[in-house]
């Protein structure tokens, strides 16, 4: 069955884009990646996401889908053949959606805030929130994973994609700030899960390398300093 043409607007370093790449890869969907620089938005981005003007944008045939969580669910709905990304049980699906929203609204934004924080007190306050969040996510892993390797159970699922895509910048933040956020003592299940995820072939292919992200981080920092 021919796949209508699929394009993804995004940039290699953006975890929201990485999520979509993970979903496409898990479903074995061929697509064209169009690099779009978030600091210099292209016309094609503005045309396909006029409301929010953000990446990622999935262009499927002549239709655009925006917002990473919406896109991942769209991919699961539009390509029902292949592994399901969301659980089959309605209650488990509600839980998956809850934890994805939690990750995006309550936890992940803290990572960038930590990198940008000035002063010891501010950093410590954010670190406390981040580590508390990880403890909450450890509980979520126990409930959703049901003793298996991933949040999705035996196979990679929705939360694995959403939370897993944050691991690259989490690692860079740990290095830059000099703090271990994800550790085996506080959150053993989650720490093991993270190791499993970053050594998984699909994730290895998509997630940016720590070294490259660190270089990008340094470039961004230099740019910020030079413009203030």
């Amino acid at each position, binding site marked *: 069955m021919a796949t209508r043409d699929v394009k993804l607007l995004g940039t290699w370093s953006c975890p929201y884009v990485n999520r979509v790449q993970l979903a496409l890869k898990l479903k074995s969907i061929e697509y064209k990646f169009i690099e779009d620089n978030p600091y210099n938005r292209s016309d094609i981005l503005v045309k396909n996401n006029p409301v929010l003007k953000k990446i990622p944008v999935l262009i499927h045939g002549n239709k655009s889908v925006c917002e990473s969580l919406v896109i991942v669910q769209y991919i699961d709905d539009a390509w029902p053949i292949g592994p399901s990304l969301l659980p089959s049980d309605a209650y488990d699906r*509600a839980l998956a959606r*809850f934890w994805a929203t939690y990750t995006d609204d309550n936890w992940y934004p803290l990572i960038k805030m930590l990198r940008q924080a000035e002063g010891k007190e501010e950093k410590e306050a954010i670190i406390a929130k981040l580590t508390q969040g990880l403890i*909450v996510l450890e509980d979520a892993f126990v409930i959703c994973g049901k003793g298996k390797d991933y949040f999705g159970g035996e196979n990679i699922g929705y939360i694995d994609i959403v939370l897993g895509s944050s691991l690259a910048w989490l690692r860079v933040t740990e290095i830059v700030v000099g703090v271990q956020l994800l550790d085996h003592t506080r959150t053993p299940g989650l720490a093991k899960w993270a190791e499993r995820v970053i050594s998984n072939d699909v994730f290895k292919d998509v997630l940016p390398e720590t070294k490259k992200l660190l270089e990008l981080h340094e470039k961004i920092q230099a740019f910020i300093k030079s413009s203030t």
Partner: protein
Amino acid sequence: MADEVILLDAHYSMFGMRVRLALAEKGIEYEYREENLANKSPLLLEMNPVHKKIPVLIHNKKPICESLIIVQYIDEVWKDKSPLLPSDPYQRAQARFWADFIDKKMYESGGKIWKTKGEEKEAGKKEFIENIKLLEGVLGEKPYFGGEEFGYLDVALITFYSWFYAYETVGEFSIEQHCPKLIEWGKRCMERESVSKSLADPHKVYDFVLMLRKKYGVE
């Protein structure tokens, strides 16, 4: 075995109203429990330990939190009556995108109108009008956001309609002047029994907002 469905809610919450509305659309019997948000019940704290917020739907002892997640859950479990989400994947993605937009943008801009004053309030008003104009554009010429049938995005937005009078009165502007088609849509939805019985009275919402403004010293 009969389903046990309990809803922890607060009367004036536009998020809680969405769940009441979805349950009404599906004809589901449930027990409504009003929460005092200044003194949350042990059950609420147990069922939503992460956010400690309403609404929470408790279905056969299992909690589901976050209004849009609850509405989707209700739609999926009680799928034989009044489908809310579109069946087409692209239409479904559009409905999810705009429902998320309502939660992120409209709630914030609407909040600025009644929670703040001066420049911040004016900025909130301007954003709110931009947001509703966009939504009116999405509605287009259709009777409902769901097309010919009342659907998920209608559920997501119509509960804000009960707060329009409060926004307009505190903000001193007319939504109808900017978005007449949206107001027509609102009135059309209100003709549905499920909607009129699930939404709070707009005048009572306004009184509630005035009480909160006094409490937080906004006047």
